[in-house]
Structures are given as structure tokens and as C-alpha cells.
């Protein structure tokens, strides 16, 4: 707070009130959307985002949510201003757009925005984005590695008017109802987005009535200026230079023998920071592409995290960031490249941008995390509910990398997902025919280090119906990497065991996989990479991890060089000293 820059024309109390009122408005939009929703992926998981924008589409306030859906939300409004035009927008209009090439993410994420008028002038916008559980494509839920173009993903809305001056456009409602597999859920979630738009509009108008447009405009300008200044101060403290990092995706789900290169260069020059994606893979045949707004979003997320992580964001915080991205890359894909499994590319790209940044600011960046949304989309007919169609999925957590001063966190949803939550087992089993047998920390999954990575997740469940799985698990070959002598962690895996007698088979990227109640589905996710040499980890901390059952006695010996009694959990100090000395010389 104390570093905020003086803004001459704005009294600081009013500025703070406007700032927090805008944020409260965005957050109330989120609450409305979540609480009015029909799909568990919205009301439990929060696979949706909300924000308030100025008349040009600059973000005034964004409610915490999934960073990858959030940071580029303004692109929806800006694209609408260009393609529809402000002059054609009327009070009460709501437009929808899911064009992934311009708006990023994938076509299942439906952006909806609504102009806000005050004293007959268009002064601001609300915007939301929510995952529609179905948009009528080739497969239920729209995710399949055999999808080869955008048309198979489902219908495309490019600034379609869903509400005209406050009235639902009935032809559009009918079109949606006739073209999705779960019309009640999709239309219910759409109405929840409408509720959020109305809530945000109401909040904005109240604020305008109270202060007038001049004060709000001045406050917005001051907020942008302060946000920019804070971010510039942070960048200025980083050493100038060029920092390059690379990683890879296992494959694109089509050519299984080919890694997909993820290469990023970061340049810091004074108070400006450039993320250059020129060396990234070109767009690929498999559906793991996404549009240019996501390239911006990935860079913006990493940038925010290392410059002003605790400030509620607005447009200003991102002004010192410059993104270089040629068209036709995997994250600036062009039509008709398929995008439905876009989430396979985001996390690894974030991890890679952060790896480049870590060379400049090593203390601020942890080792790599498990790096994926290991997503299992399940669809079928629910025998408990008149054989009605169901589609479900949920975020799967994993380990985060060790930090320069402490261990990484365990079983947390990936960087891409942010504030998104799990579906509680009790809710899941109510809504869907699934039975979870266990859900636990994955033993020995962490990247060893002086500060070890967090632990991954392991769960087993059965689908209580004849169903199909659409599986998308990335970062199986590309393990979460360590930093500064820290080791890599175990990686993500998904397995099916058809019969108790049979061996479980690994299924990573596949579609139309039939399962029944006799099939055991096993998800195992990676831990976080280690930070620093594991032989320097205090032996008593290793013993504590053994005592709590996070790691085995065997792992304590091989990964950390610590010998622990399996019952008393006491450390054999002498033998440990010898072993560690030996491991230091012959790693």
C-alpha cells in the first residue's frame, strides 16, 4: 500500500472505495454465477470467471478464478467492439462468443458480455466465461484426440446476440436447446451467466450514480497508473538480460512418437519485460492448440505472479509486459486447428516461462509443478436417473515444486486452474454414477531436494454404468523438473484395470474408452520438483516424512541418503553420514 504512487486529481479515500467496489462487483458476479448454476463443474469447481471492463475493454476488476480463463477475458469485449461495434449495442444486450483463435482457451468456454449504459452512454462492460458442458460437437463434452478441426468441436458463436434489450432471443435459445446433449444444464448455466451480467451491471450503475462518470474514469486511470507503476518497480528490480528455457509436451495425441517443443525467451530491459514465443512449436494436428489470447494470458499470469502477486489485477498491472508471438504457433493457432484439449499446452508453457524468469529471480520461482489438468471426461447414461445422459469431469490435483526456503505444497490444482476446487466425493456421488474407492497422497512422488517438492495425488474409482472415457493426461514423459540440484518428481499417469486379476494398463491420451462397473480407474499425479541438493535436507525432516507415511524408508535411503529405523523412525546418524558422503561423490 505504501508504495502506491500519488495521484493528484483523485482523493485517496474515493479511489480506494471505487477500487474495492469494482472488485466487490466482480466477486459478486462470481457468486451469482456459481450459485445460480446447474452444472457441478460451475457450482462446485468454479470453471468460470467474471470481470468488469471499461468502455474500451480494459479490465477494471477481475474476480479470482482460473487464471487461464481470466487474464485474457477482456479480449472478448475488445473483439466485440471491433466486430459488432459499440454503436450497435443497446442496454440489456448480451452477446456470446467462443472463438478460440481470437479469445484463447477452447470453444467449450463460452464468453458472454453485456454493455452497461449510464446517462444514455455506453460506459462499461460485464464479461463472464463459463465452461459449457456440451456445445454439440462430435463427442459428449467435446474433447477427443481424434477431433481434427474446429467444426467437430461444436457450434461456434462469434458475437451472437443471446439477449436483445433484456429479452431472450428465442431463436437462439431454441438453437442451443436443440444442439447440445444436456440442454437443461447448458441453458441453466447460461442463465447463471446472465445473472452475473445483471449483478455486475447493477453494481456498476450504483457506483456511477454515486460518483458520476468523471470520478469513475479518473479512478480507473489512477488505478491503471498505480498498477503499472507497481509492476514497473518490480521489473526494475530484476537484472536485465535474456533468459531462455525449454521443455516439451509428451506428444500431440496424434503422433505419439514426437515431442512438442515448448521454448520461451524472456528479455528484461529496465522496467519492461518481453516474453518471446518465436521458438515455440508450430500449431499441431492434434487438438492441443489454442488461440493468441492464451499466449498473452500465459505470459500475463507468469508476469503477475512474479511482479505484483498480492494486488487485485487491472489492465495497468500488465502494461510493462510485451508478448512476441508469430501467428500459427501452437498457442497462436489459426482456423481450423482443433483446440478442444487446449489445457494440455498451458501448464507446461507456464512452467517454462517461469523457468526462464527463475534465471533472473531465482528466489521468487519454485521448481516445476506436476504441470497438467489430468482430465478424464466421463459420459454415459445414468441408470439411477432414467438413463439420462451425463457428462462429468473434475480437476485433479498434484504436487508443486520446492521453494528457495521451504518445501513445495502437495495435492493442489494446477497453476492453470488457480482458485478452482474439486467436486467433493459426496457431491460427485450424488450427481453422477461414480464410486471413489480411495483418494490419497501419492507416496514417494515428490521431487527430492533440500526443500522437497509437494506430493502428487492417487485415487481409484469405478463408474457405476456403461460409459465412455475421453482421457487427456499430459506430462507423463516430461517429469516435473527440479532446481539447483533438486531432483525431478514422479509424473502423471492414468491406468485402467479391467479385472482384478489383470495388470493395469496406462491410458494417457485416448477417446471412446469403454468402461463398466468392473473397471477400476486409477489416477496418479506427479509431485513437484525438488529445490536444492536432497543430501542437504536435514535428516530429521526426512524421518518426519517417513513417520507420517509420505515417503518410504527405502526412498529416504535412496533419494536422501538417510537411514531410518522402520518402527521407531529414528535416524541412524553414523550410517547416514557415511551414506551421504558416498552419494556425494558417486551420485
Amino acid at each position, binding site marked *: 500500500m505504501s508504495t502506491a504512487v500519488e495521484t493528484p486529481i483523485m482523493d485517496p*479515500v474515493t479511489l*480506494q*472505495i471505487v477500487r*474495492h*467496489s469494482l472488485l*466487490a462487483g466482480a466477486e*459478486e458476479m462470481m457468486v*451469482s454465477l*456459481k*450459485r*445460480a*448454476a*446447474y452444472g457441478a463443474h460451475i*457450482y462446485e469447481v468454479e470453471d468460470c470467471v467474471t470481470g468488469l471492463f471499461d468502455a474500451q475493454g480494459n479490465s477494471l476488476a477481475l474476480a*479470482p*478464478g*482460473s487464471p487461464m480463463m481470466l487474464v485474457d477475458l477482456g479480449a472478448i469485449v475488445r473483439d466485440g467492439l471491433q466486430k459488432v461495434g459499440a454503436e450497435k449495442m443497446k442496454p440489456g444486450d448480451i452477446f456470446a462468443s467462443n472463438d478460440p483463435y481470437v479469445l484463447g482457451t477452447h470453444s467449450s468456454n463460452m464468453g458472454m458480455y453485456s454493455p452497461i449504459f449510464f446517462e444514455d452512454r455506453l460506459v462499461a462492460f460485464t464479461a463472464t466465461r463459463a465452461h459449457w458442458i456440451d456445445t454439440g460437437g462430435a463427442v459428449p463434452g467435446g474433447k477427443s484426440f481424434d477431433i481434427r478441426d474446429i467444426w467437430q468441436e461444436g457450434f461456434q458463436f462469434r458475437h451472437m446476440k443471446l439477449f436483445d434489450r433484456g429479452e431472450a432471443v428465442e431463436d437462439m435459445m431454441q438453437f442451443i436447446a436443440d444442439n447440445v446433449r444436456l440442454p437443461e*444444464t447448458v441453458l*441453466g448455466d447460461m*442463465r*447463471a451467466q446472465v*445473472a452475473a*451480467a*445483471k*449483478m455486475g*451491471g447493477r453494481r456498476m450503475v450504483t*457506483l456511477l450514480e454515486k460518483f458520476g462518470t468523471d470520478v469513475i474514469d479518473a479512478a480507473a486511470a489512477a488505478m491503471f497508473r498505480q498498477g503499472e507503476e507497481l509492476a514497473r518497480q518490480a521489473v526494475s528490480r530484476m537484472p536485465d538480460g535474456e533468459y531462455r528455457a525449454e521443455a516439451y509436451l509428451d506428444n500431440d495425441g496424434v503422433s505419439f512418437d514426437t515431442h512438442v517443443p515448448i521454448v520461451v525467451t524472456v528479455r528484461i530491459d529496465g522496467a519492461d519485460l518481453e516474453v518471446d514465443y518465436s521458438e515455440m512449436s508450430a500449431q499441431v494436428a492434434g487438438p492441443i492448440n489454442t488461440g493468441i489470447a492464451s499466449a498473452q494470458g500465459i505470459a500475463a499470469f507468469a508476469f503477475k*505472479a512474479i511482479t*505484483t*502477486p498480492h494486488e487485485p489485477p487491472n489492465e495497468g498491472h500488465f502494461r510493462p509486459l510485451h508478448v512476441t508471438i508469430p501467428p500459427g504457433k501452437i498457442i497462436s493457432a489459426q482456423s481450423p486447428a482443433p483446440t478442444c484439449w487446449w489445457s494440455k499446452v498451458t501448464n507446461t508453457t507456464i512452467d517454462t516461462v*517461469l523457468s526462464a524468469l527463475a534465471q533472473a529471480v531465482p528466489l521468487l*520461482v519454485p521448481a516445476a509443478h506436476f504441470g497438467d489438468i489430468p482430465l478424464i471426461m466421463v459420459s454415459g447414461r445414468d441408470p439411477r436417473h432414467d438413463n439420462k445422459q451425463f457428462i462429468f469431469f473434475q480437476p485433479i*490435483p498434484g504436487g508443486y515444486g520446492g*521453494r528457495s526456503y521451504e518445501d513445495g*505444497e*502437495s*495435492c*493442489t*490444482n494446477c497453476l492453470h486452474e*488457480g*482458485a*478452482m*476446487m*474439486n467436486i*467433493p*466425493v*459426496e*457431491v460427485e*456421488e*450424488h450427481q453422477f454414477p461414480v*464410486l471413489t*474407492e*480411495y*483418494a*490419497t*497422497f501419492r507416496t514417494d512422488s515428490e521431487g527430492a531436494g533440500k526443500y522437497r517438492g509437494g506430493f502428487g495425488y492417487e485415487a481409484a474409482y469405478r463408474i457405476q454404468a456403461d460409459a465412455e472415457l475421453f482421457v487427456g493426461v499430459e506430462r507423463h514423459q516430461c517429469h516435473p523438473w527440479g532446481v539447483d540440484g533438486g531432483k525431478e518428481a514422479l509424473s502423471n499417469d492414468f491406468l485402467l484395470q479391467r479385472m482384478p486379476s489383470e495388470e493395469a494398463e496406462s491410458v494417457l491420451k485416448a477417446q471412446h474408452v469403454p468402461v463398466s462397473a468392473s473397471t477400476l480407474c486409477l489416477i496418479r499425479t506427479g509431485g513437484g520438483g525438488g529445490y536444492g541438493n536432497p543430501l542437504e535436507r536435514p535428516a530429521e525432516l526426512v524421518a518426519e516424512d517417513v*513417520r*507420517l*507415511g*509420505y515417503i518410504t524408508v527405502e526412498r529416504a535411503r535412496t533419494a536422501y541418503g538417510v537411514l531410518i529405523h522402520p518402527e521407531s523412525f529414528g535416524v541412524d546418524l553414523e550410517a547416514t553420514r557415511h551414506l551421504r558422503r558416498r552419494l556425494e561423490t558417486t551420485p
Partner: protein
Amino acid sequence: MSERLAIDIGGTFTDLVAYRTDTGALTFTKSSTTPRELTNAVVACVNKVAVTLSDVDLFVHGSTVGINTIIERTGPITALVTTKGFRDVYEMGRRNRPDIWDLLFRRPRPLVPRDRRFEVTERLAATGAVLIALDEDDLRSTLRQIEATDTASIAVCLLHSYANPEHERRVGAIIKDALPSTYVTLSSDIHREYREYERTSTTAINAYLIPVVGAYLRRLDSRMTTLGFEGRTLIMQSSGGVMTLEAASRQPVRIIESGPAGGVAGTLWLCSMLGEGNAIAFDMGGTTAKACLIENGQAKVTTDYYIGGRITGHPVQVPFLDIIEIGAGGGSIATVDTVGALNVGPHSAGAEPGPACYDLGGAHATVTDANLLVGKLDPERFLGGEMKLNERRGLEAVSALGERLGLTPVDTANGILRIANAMMAAAISKVTVERGFDPRDFVMVAYGGAGPMHATAVARELGVQRLIIPQAPGQFSALGMLTTDFRYDFAQTYPSATANLAATELDDRFCALETEARAELANDVGSGNVRFVRSADMRYVGQFHTLVVVLPDGPYDDSYMDRLAARFHQAHEARYGHAALSEPTQIINLRLAAIIQLSKPALPRIDVGTDLPPDSARLGMRRVTWEDGTEVASAIFQRELLQSGNRIAGPAIIQESASVIPIGRGETARVDEFGNLHISLQGGN
């Protein structure tokens, strides 16, 4: 003749209010909180006042015992018994990162570590049907493992137990049989809703608290009995209602924020008396400051509360008043960190040893020492003269900090106060500005020992124009405890389509709930004039979250169901800005609140005077250094001797037995007929 008594234990002081129901006379006192044995301060307070305990028929109590145990993690060894395969649910939480940009985030740390979380073979389906029968042998062998440790309390939370509590009850019975001296909390006795993480956390907190809070309440009960008390003891709940001592011993999770709830209850009562609808309740004691928003005469209650904050705190799913709390109070210690920045709190000197000026061995400079040094506190009249403050000790402590900062002692003291005030303002912003409310539209009611001392400065910071300091602000939370009602809440899950439900059937269901409620109240509270409030959780078919719709008393005629659906559409429209009139609606839960009103104290009126305070109330002049650094000779008044209608213009200090109220330049205070001070900050600096 009968009396009512309320005692509120805070972090620094324990406060007592006695109310005589025949004369309306109120008696106040306070005593230093005795952290090693909280009941000592209760006895000390009782011994200070001329109240015959055998005349007291009602004793209402609030205590910090619960919150302290959780925050300081001083509870006993607690175990968790849960369904096989799910012991890590409690540690994984909802797996989210609420602070989405923070790469250096930390997840909440559970109260029950992994080696004390045990699994038992059993499994229910979501319907409550038994999929795997409870393996009692498995449980008994687990209990032998638990027995080998010093486990004092066990939380039992099994999957889907909200739908069918039988397995939990059987587990509870077996534990009682095998480990008779170990406390047991069953999740199904606390909270009957799904979401296993939040229910586990709520249950674990209750289990963690039972040994500590239960023993505390028994000691309290026995000491009060020894002193001659024969009446009924009620405990303040975090929701603002009261419950019996026996119920609080079983469910201490409901009384965690009992003291702050007393202050909010008092604010609601005061506001309704003064005709104020919108208020900020601001409570500052020795250890913490709290703020709660009152809008249209209602304080918000939440069942989505996190102890210790949303990002790393513990979820509790029982009703709490929506109060924001920060670690800054009169006893908060000021420190200078390694980069030379002056900080205040969160550590507090508490009551023992207390601020340096208490001269009880405390060496750290606190907010109270700073107030003394700038002249706002009178060393001779602290606690009505019961305690002399040692100016030299206070000065030494503040000077030591000042030397490290290169500041004079007075500038250091003012710096401490300005930082503390900014922290209070930030806390109030959380319940106003950050929710889109402008504090300038609210009256602030300030209480707690240190609240009045900082109220004008904090109000100025926020732009608040009007401030009310109630009579005896130091004991206001205790007084508030005498203004609450008995409130028992009942619920029944009753999923039914509104269109298919007969109005008579709905009325029958509520009547059955009322019968059940009457029986339980008779058992627990005794019969009285019970008022019932009916409501229903409703939603559109296919929706998940519900909205509460309040229903009138029965019986209902045939057309009522349509009206009920219409009320839901209206509520949806009001909450979300749209209603789907063609969509079918359904009822999920029926709720019944049974309220027995307790008669409220009537404040005695004070003598009527003129604009000018009487000479007897004038204590002369004292040099006071104000926040802007100017030292000004300021008039000093004794609050207890002020008369209705008196006006005081700043700079002035109004002293009373437990507190001090600075009135800045340009600000004016007016005394109302009950002795409340109304301060206008218009034109103040």
C-alpha cells in the same frame, strides 16, 4: 427481586454487567483476564460487585477459550476416524489456491496430523444405503492403536453420514465402550450437509475443543455454584443467539466467537433503540479489533466461515456472525523489523505482563504505552483509578524503539498510534468498502476497552461522519449478551417439487417440526412463549444452490403453493437479477427457527443538563499530542458526571472508568438521554 448477570472474557479484560430486572439498574465492572485459569477473573469480577449471586436467575457468558485454543493450537491430542481410503481428505481440502497469483502460497495445516487420522472399513452410498458394512473388529483394533497414544478426543466423520448417521453412531458407541474417558464428536451431530472436507474440518474443530472447553465450563459452573449461584447459565453462540451450558459443552464449535457476537448483539439492540438502521460495529480490546456490518437492522450470519481467514484458515459450517478480526489492540506490541520498519501487533502483551506502563514486568512498548505517552491516558485514573500507570516504564519502552528509528519518544508513540489506526481502518474496509458499501453512509458504534480511544481517529481515516460511544463501552459486549434471545434452529431435508406438493402436506410437515421443537425446548430451556419462523430452501429443478424463502405461519389454502413458487421467483429475481418463470421449482429443506424472547434491559435515563457540561464533570486541562504532532492544552471531562444535552467541542478528552475518548479539533460530542455519546466528525481534522 431478580438479577441477570453477563460476563465476557476478552483477551485482556474480563467484563461483568449486572442488571436488576425490577429497577433497571445496571452495574459494571472489569478485571484483568487470567489466562492460566480464566475462571479466576470471573470470580474476581463477581467479588467486586455488590450482587448477591443467589438473587441471580440468569447468567450469560462468553469466552475466548475456544478461539485461543485453535489459534494457538493448544488443544489436546485429537484423532480422526474416517472412511477407509479417505484419511487425506482433511489435509487436501478443496485443493484450490484462493490467492491465484501467488507461487509461494501455503495450504492450511490441519489440526489433526496424518499419523492421527485413522481409517475404518465401511462405506455408504450417497443415498445412505450401506455398501460395505462397518467392520467392528477393524475399528476395535484401530482403537487399540489410538489407546496407545494420549488421545483425548476423537472426531468421527464418515462419508455420506449426513444421509445416514447409523455407522457414525455405531462407531461412537464402540469408542465410548472401548475408550470411556475419550471424548467423541460425530459429524452427524454437528452438521447434516454434504461436502466431506468442510464437515470433517467442523467436526475436527469440535473434537479439538471439547476437552478444553468442556472442562472450562464445568469449572466455571462449579465455581459459580460455590459462590451461591443457583440460576441458569447460558453461553453466547457465534451466531448471536444463546445456548445452554450443557449444549455448549457438547458443541463448543458453536461458541468460538462468543465475545464478539455479544458486542454485535448489543449494537443491534442499541441501534434499534436509537433508530439507526445502518451501522459499523467496531470493537477494540487489548488483543484484537473486530468489525461487523449492520445493514437495515440486520447483521449478516454466515455458515461459510473460516477461522483464521479464508486463504489458510479452517472452515466451520455452523452459523457465525460475519465479523472481521485483526490482531491489533491496546496491548499490541510495537516492534522495529530488520529493515527499520515500525510494526504493530499481532503479538499482544495481554493482561500478564501487559503493557510496560502496567509495571507488571512487561518490557515491550504497546499501543497503551503510546496512548499514555501522548497524554490521552491519565496515569492516575486508569480503570477508574484502580490501577496506576507507570509513566516512566512506558516512556522507557517507547524510547527504546525510538532510538532504533531515530525518532523522539513522542513521534514514536504517534507513529505507533497512526499505524494501529490504519490497521483498524483496513479491517473496517473489509466489511464495508470491499463489499461495495461506503463507510460514509454508516454510523460507527465503537466499544471495547480501546475502541473509544481510537474511534475518532479511525472514523476520520474512513470518512465516517457520525460516531456513537455507548455507556460503559468497555463492558458493552457483556451488556450485549443480556440483549439476545434463545434461538434453536431445526431443519429437515424434504426434497419435493413445489407443483406436486399439497399445501396441507407442507403445513403438516412444519407442524411436526414445531412439535419436535417444543419437546426439545421443554427439555433444554423449559416452556416459554415460543415464536416460530418457518422458511424453506428452494431452487429451480436442476440447480444446486438454494435460496431461503420465509413462509408465513400455517395453515395454508390450496392456492398457497403457487404463491410460494412466486415468492421464490421474486427472491431469485432480487438475488440474481432474473427469474425463470417457466422453470419448475422445488423445496430441498424445511427450516424452523424457534425463538424464545428474553426481556431486554432498559437503559436508565441520566440527569438532564444544558449545552454546557457541569463544572463537576470538568477535570481541568492536560497537554495532549494529537495525531498531527501538535501538542495542545485539551479540556478533560469525567464522562459519568456529564448530563443529557451537554455538548463538548474538541480538542478534549472524555475520561471514564474503563476508557478514554479523545475529541479532535473541529469535532463535537453530544450526550443523549441514556448517556450515549454522539460524536460528529464534520469539519474535524
